């Protein structure tokens, strides 16, 4: 293992750990669910994926499995964040410090245009 690869592994582990620390800090400090989703989504996509890239560099025999893990994390993280934000919106959890709510206004206009709205399609 050359010094360049070791230095690259060091940089990847440090950046991944700092993303994890900042994500958990945002989970504690931010005001509502949507802002916390924004912070916690970074931990899966950047923190864990950069650590998996470091594993792929450190052991070339497991590089294929680690790269599959990177692809899985990068695809799954935004999907989970979107599902949780959609669940919070359907449960009616309000956005704190919001000046206006465009989605509620659009829904009101839609329901006034259609007196009998169709039931929600199962997503």
């Amino acid at each position: 293992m050359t010094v360049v690869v070791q230095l690259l592994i060091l940089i990847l582990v440090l950046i991944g750990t700092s993303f994890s620390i900042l994500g958990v800090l945002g989970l504690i400090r931010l005001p509502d669910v949507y802002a916390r989703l924004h912070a916690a989504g970074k931990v899966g996509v950047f923190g864990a994926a950069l650590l998996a890239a470091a594993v792929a560099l450190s052991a070339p025999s497991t590089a294929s499995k680690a790269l599959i893990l990177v692809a899985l994390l990068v695809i799954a993280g935004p999907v989970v964040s979107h599902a949780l934000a959609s669940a919070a919106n359907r449960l009616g959890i309000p956005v704190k410090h919001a000046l206006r709510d465009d989605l509620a206004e659009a829904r009101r206009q839609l329901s006034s245009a259609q007196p009998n709205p169709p039931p929600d399609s199962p997503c």
Partner: protein
Amino acid sequence: MEEILGAVFVIALVAHLLLLGVAAWRVLRGENAVDRLLSVELVSVLALCVVLLTTLITGQSIYVDVALGLAALSFIGTLALAKYLADQRMF
């Protein structure tokens, strides 16, 4: 260089274990159901980070398989629970 790398791995492992404790505390003290489910997802991702750092420290590649299984199962579980929260039914 090897010593620096080993020390950084151990420090990162300890940091991730502390963050795991903080996220588990948020599971107990969340303000609503979506908040707690988000914390559960974060706990599983941080456990994944701990497994990957264990791979880096011990050099045994069997832990990557554990990480793959954990990532896939926590993804499916969180999606199913988010749908259950939103629709009040699973299917």
